[in-house]
């Protein structure tokens, strides 16, 4: 995963939750950050906007921490760019 992607995910989380970005690390889990189910839904909304992706419900059910979230975003970003290349 690129640092840039991780930074963008962590910034989206911090901005949504209105907490300092320094308090979010790649190894943080939602519980530690006080992220409840409604916060998580808002963070998904922010990530969809930030990366211009659609995050399906089934992608998010098992996600409990930041690393997993970054991995999921990366997968969707790569899938999107692959799809965009198909017409060539």
């Amino acid at each position: 995963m690129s640092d840039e992607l991780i930074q963008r995910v962590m910034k989206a989380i911090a901005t949504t939750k209105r907490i300092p970005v320094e308090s979010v690390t790649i190894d943080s889990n939602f519980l530690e950050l006080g992220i409840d189910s409604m916060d998580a839904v808002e963070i998904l909304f922010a990530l969809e906007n930030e990366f211009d992706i659609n995050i399906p419900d089934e992608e998010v059910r098992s996600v409990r921490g930041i690393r997993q979230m970054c991995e999921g975003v990366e997968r969707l970003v790569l899938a999107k760019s692959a799809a965009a290349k198909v017409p060539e």
Partner: protein
Amino acid sequence: MRRVAITGMGAICALGKNVAEFAQALAEGRPGIGPIESADVSQIRFQNGAEVKGYTHAPYFDDRRADFIDRFAQFAVIAAREAIADAGIQWTPDLRESAAIVTGSCVGGQSTEDIGFHEVYKLGHNRVHPLTIPKTMANAGASHISMEFGITGPSFTLSTACSSAAHAIGQAFWMVRSGATGLAIAGGSEAPFSFGILKAWEAMRVVSPDTCRPFSKDRHGMILGEGGAMLVLEPLEAAQARGARIHAEIVGLGMSADAGHITQPSAEGAARAIRAALRDAHLAPEAIGYINAHGTGTPANDPTETAAIRAVFGAHAGRLAISSTKSMHGHALGASAALECLATALALRDGLLPPTANYREPDPQCDLDVIPNVARAARVEYALSNSFAFGGLNAVLALRAV
């Protein structure tokens, strides 16, 4: 049945950010109506409203909490905080479990919905903010009050357009009177200043191009307002026993439906609600000294309300003092009746009847003593607060001075 005291009052509206400022503006007959600032009205035919000037959530809610609460529900919480502090409630686990919350709102958080729908319909975005639903729901005011104070008793919201808060206060009054609850927080809140909602009101052609002049011959309609007002209701004896300050008593509630037209008011429907309130309070019409009118300032309402008052009170109508405080705090829809019930309680408590502001010209169809422009010192024992909603759903509260 128990007598019911108002022991706490809170308000935020165009006239001020607390009850003291609200009372001061009413006493001075000073309207809070001016150019609308919180929404873009460049494409709207009317320009004036009764807003909470310069409102921001910052003094009341931290940023993250405010993310979850639409402006209308913020007003509900702010008013409830003041009312509960005013009442000097000492919370116990039992009290938290039995206390009731009944709020009224007409449009709820439709301003939040308006923003979200603009995103998808106009801007072509694919998604709406996920807090749109919990911010829009009309019961959000009651929910956030319950969460803030840990109140776990019966809590709900009524929506009957411009009568919402009167129905809400009335239900809470009945619950305290019957013994169903020992404490109720009741009122209403509204924040309708968003472009889509204003456009809808524009289309109704009931909003005044300048200001609200109830009962004045040159009236041109209502002025939209916003805000919230909450009351704390307790059994009178319990309130006296704990040494609470009692602002006034609520003694009656009358309700009716016009079963006529969806917007055109009916004098008969209004009269039936007034009679029902008198009956509920065991009062003769002659006992009433002041009426806080529905008084929207529309061509249709004011003569109809006048006719209803004449029908119920007969010769006594000429001895009644009547005023519309909507001329000052605007028509705050689902919050209106709460602001007006509060104004009525203050009038009884302070012996000062609020005026009908912006009044210029007598109208033979509204030939009542409407307290034009200047507040009047008068000790009144019993008063009514009228609310006659779009949809023909009417609610009238009867209050008594302590």
